[in-house]
């Protein structure tokens, strides 16, 4: 199963429960809401989408299907912007 983790080069801080990320490659700033910040913190260690969905559902009162859909969208966005990276094998990471 494909796992993901934070791109180690990203500068960031959590301010008032929302993460501010800066990618030194393009100096773009990204502001994460509370749930995305929770996901970002999880990704300090490699996580699969299933891992993340489970953790988010435990932490927040969300429907698992909705959580999976939102997290998958977040995954795509963060991969596109170079904020996270895939770890090891697990097949082609397709959108």
């Amino acid at each position, binding site marked *: 199963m494909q796992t993901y983790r934070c791109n180690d080069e990203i500068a960031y801080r*959590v301010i*008032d429960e929302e993460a501010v990320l*800066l990618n030194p490659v393009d100096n773009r*700033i990204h*502001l994460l*809401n509370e749930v995305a910040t929770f996901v970002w913190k999880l990704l300090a260690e490699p996580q699969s989408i299933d891992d993340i969905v489970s953790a988010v559902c435990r932490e927040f009162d969300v429907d698992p299907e909705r959580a999976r859909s*939102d997290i998958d969208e977040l995954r795509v966005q963060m991969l596109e912007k170079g904020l996270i990276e895939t770890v090891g094998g697990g097949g082609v990471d397709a959108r």
Partner: protein
Amino acid sequence: MLDDRCLPSVYEEIVHRAMKSNHPLDVIWELTHRCNLRCRHCYITDFDRPELDTETCRGILEQLAEAGVLWLTVTGGEPFMRSDLFDLLGYARDLKFAVTLFTNGTLIDSAAAERLSDLKLSGVEVSIYGASPAVNDPFTGVDGSFRRSISAVEHLLRFGVPVTLKTCIVRSNFNDYSNIEALAAELGVRLRSTSYLAPRNDGDTTRIDACRLTDEQVADALRDDGAAGIVPDLVGEGLVPDRLDRVIPCGAGHVSCGITPDGSVLPCLQFVNGGEDLSRRDFLSIWNESELFERVREVRLSDVEPCNRCPGLKYCFRCPGIALIEDGDLLGPSRESCRITRILMGILGDEAQIPPPRDTN
């Protein structure tokens, strides 16, 4: 979930939120006052100012990270005069700071450029003062400095480091500005320029008075669109806010601050004196409890006399720190800002008289 609107608005939102809670976002740290150049306009009076050892610096970096500081600018003097610079830059990156390095570049060879590339800094800003050795080197006081600075830029670019060329526009290079712009374009780098000079740290303005643009040069720059970036960065936005009692003149002490080589924390390095020492209290305690920071945070534009009723207010850019060190009053005018504003008002045909600068001598 992920908000990354165009850079200025996301940044502005972050700063706005940080201002509300006085969250420290941005620190500029003079690691050393030592320098291998002797630029004419330099504000440093004591090149041998005591500096902190490596372990102490690493501890301070941890405190800054813990406090929530994201943007860290490392400067000097010349930071490469410190043998532990790469250690400290590396540790700052390990602590997930967004790091910018200010340097004259003369000590950056290919190997150093490669190491900087590996650190993934947000940027390296290299200072020059002319587009040729003939203009640059007399200003820096060191023959060969221009070639070494440009060589550094080339090394950095080869290794993919984001580079900005930086210059102060002064009397001696005013006529060379278009060549500096052309040089930046040729190198493929952004140029950042200002003509706003800081007095020496002891308040002496003799040297910068000889460097500052003449009234005629200021007027030429203001009239000439091609000189945008020289003086216009010194002028206000043409608006006078309705409620001056709600306007914070500067972010210093609200979201940003400076640290001196010997570990004094100031709202801004322009304040020079009155900071608290990190050997006595940790950074967050100083940030939250320092009397100087509290005093600065209370200041609103309505408190600045006579600027609060000056007809030139809408044109004026005023640095409170420079007003303090050059004219002795944090809440008073900056004579240099008054000069620029007067010239601009003359060009615009605005005949209102701005109050003369107070004589604080």
